């Protein structure tokens, strides 16, 4: 049972994630977009979208820190458990609230603006549902367990297991005693990973960083230069 939940499912999700992206990239460049609807509605978007995106960046950075950086490293850097807990709970709660507020605004926008509603695809609906579950579970875990509750040291279990999955040495037993709210959050995150390549979330990989240094005006040839000179 543990193996199915904490080894099989993660690898199935990761496989879909990787293969799905390769397939989508090769087959569907035309569909690879943010599918912006700002032109249809911008009042709610103007607030909701930055909240959601910036909150997500903070949350992703927090997850990277919490899951990928071993406890030993932060301790070696002189950050004791108490300090880490303070920072992670504080920043985590703030980021979680931002993402949740952003998502709520964007959802409200989807539902209340008939123009936006009409452009919503099946993939969008699934994505919104899964995102909502992931985010609410995550927020509940952070606020419920770590802020209001006694606090749970996920870095001793979940983080180790997660790094194990990424390095192909998964240890499902680490997840056995984890509080259910964290288990559910992790499960829903795998689901998100599995649907990711089939939704508009693919635009994340197109974050146009290269724009910062490319020349302003782009010239392209229609045909290769004729070599008869």
């Amino acid at each position, binding site marked *: 049972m543990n193996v199915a939940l904490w080894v099989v499912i993660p690898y199935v999700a990761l496989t879909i994630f990787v293969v799905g992206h390769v397939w989508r990239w*090769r*087959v*569907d*460049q*035309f*569909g*690879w*977009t*943010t*599918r*912006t*609807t*700002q*032109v*249809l*509605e*911008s009042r709610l*978007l*103007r*607030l909701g*979208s*930055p909240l*959601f*995106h*910036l909150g997500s960046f903070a949350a992703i950075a927090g997850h990277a820190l919490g899951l990928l950086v071993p406890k030993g490293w932060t301790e070696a850097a002189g950050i004791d458990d108490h300090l880490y807990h303070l920072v992670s709970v504080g920043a985590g709660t703030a980021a979680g609230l931002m993402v949740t507020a952003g998502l709520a605004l964007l959802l409200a926008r989807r539902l209340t603006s*008939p*123009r936006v*509603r*009409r*452009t*919503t*695809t*099946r*993939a969008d609906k699934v994505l919104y549902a899964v995102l909502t579950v992931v985010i609410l579970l995550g927020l509940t875990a952070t606020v419920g367990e770590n802020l209001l509750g006694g606090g749970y040291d996920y870095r001793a279990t979940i983080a180790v297991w997660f790094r194990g999955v990424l390095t192909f040495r998964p240890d499902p037993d680490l997840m056995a005693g984890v509080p259910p709210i964290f288990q559910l959050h992790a499960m829903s995150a795998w689901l998100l990973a599995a649907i990711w390549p*089939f939704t*508009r979330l693919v*635009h994340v990989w*197109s974050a*146009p*960083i*290269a*724009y*910062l240094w*490319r020349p*302003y*005006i*782009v*010239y*392209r*040839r*229609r*045909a*290769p*230069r*004729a070599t*008869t*000179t």
Partner: protein
Amino acid sequence: MRVLAQVAMVMNLDKCIGCHTCSVTCKQTWTNRDGVEYVWFNNVETKPGVGYPRRHEDQERWRGGWQVDRRGRLKLRSGGRVKRLLGLFANPDLPDLDDYYEPATYDYDTLVTAPAGPHVPVIRPKSAITGEDMAITWGPNWEDDLGGAPEHAPADPNLAAMAEKVRMEFDKTFMFHLPRICEHCLNPACVAACPSGALYKREEDGIVLVDQDRCRGWRMCVSACPYKKVYVNHRTGKAEKCTFCFPRIEAGQPTVCAETCVGRLRYIGLVLYDADAVLGAARVAGPRDLLEAQRRVFLDPDDPKVAAAARAAGIAEDWIEAARRSPVYRLAMRYRVALPLHPEYRTMPMVWYIPPLSPVLDAVTGMGADADDPDNVFHAITDLRIPLGYLASLLAAGDTEVVAGALMRLSAMRAHMRARAIDGSVDEDLLAAAGMTAEEMEEMYRLLAIARYDERYVVPAAHREDAAALSAQVDGCSLDGEGGPGMTGFHPAGLTGRRPDGRLGLRLFTGRGGAA
């Protein structure tokens, strides 16, 4: 010197009757699809008026185009690169659908399916976006022929620069039509603003295009274009714009808007220019110097040095020859009657306009004078502040001298041809004042008044050497998916088609929206 060729256009505004044939044929060809219901690659505005989208010329609001900062550097008005990336989540300068208009259709089925009854069934307007009932309160051409102008037109940004008196009287004074397409600029702000590098300017002919496979929907081009000639397709989430009908141009044919223009007022031809000089020209300090700066970027195709440099740059002989016969070059550079639209945006636009003489003639008639007497017209051109100031803010960054010069030459042409037809006389003073020879006058007359098809459109076909690359595209099209620009199955001259890499669009991701 890096010589490039640009396919450019000139429109003779005096001849535009505002029939919208160009807009309609363009729409039927390119934007007759869900997702771009509100999009007009070609639209015709009545001036003075706020235009489409509303007040798009107000760059204080929309922050399109370029500006020169205090240190003399050229910058996008909407800010630098970092600022643009931070604006990805919500573009602060993007027009709303309501700034364009909400497209409407009618429930025509009611006429057929209504049950028999005492009353004639009526149809109601439905939003083409949501399918719901709506009241039509604005459109892409709401102010046609100054309709509602007393109410709306004072908001025209071009009037802001003019005196109080003008604003009150303009609707009695003048009116003209302004057909607008993408300017295929030499220094395109849309290209510079695209974070993905999906927009590009073609080296061969200067046409500015959106690569539909590389556009990621960041919609920065839409706000950066000061002419608001890039649009979001809300079904596909990608940017689309006027293509200068490139499949037709490649086949040596004029664009659809030009081909179908009832007034035969559009001219298409090549301009050779020095790509290395563009940046320097776009950042000259004074807005009123921009016209001359842009003219200096153009190269004279009759100059043997230019021809040699063009050859060295790989431009084919027939293209250089076509550049020599270019009506655009002649109207802009030899006769100097064509002027760029809003040169102060610093994008170096390549669709130029011959200012209309009719507002001046109307004013002369309005004052009870004879508009056929050249003297009256000359006086009006120098004295009348009203239409001249307006035309100057449209075509010359406010410099009335420039517009007056072009109008002088146009009315000198009228006077010259009239005298020749009546008694064969030639007024040398008149020619000297216009700075043109009798021969040039008559050539210009021929080009403007006779306007033969093969003189209006000098479009060299794309090159045979490139034929392999072109034929690789025939058969199917990656953009044929639902909502894609090719979904109408329109394949002009069989030139659009599957990309060489054979990519396809997927139905799953292109949405269901739009009216059923």
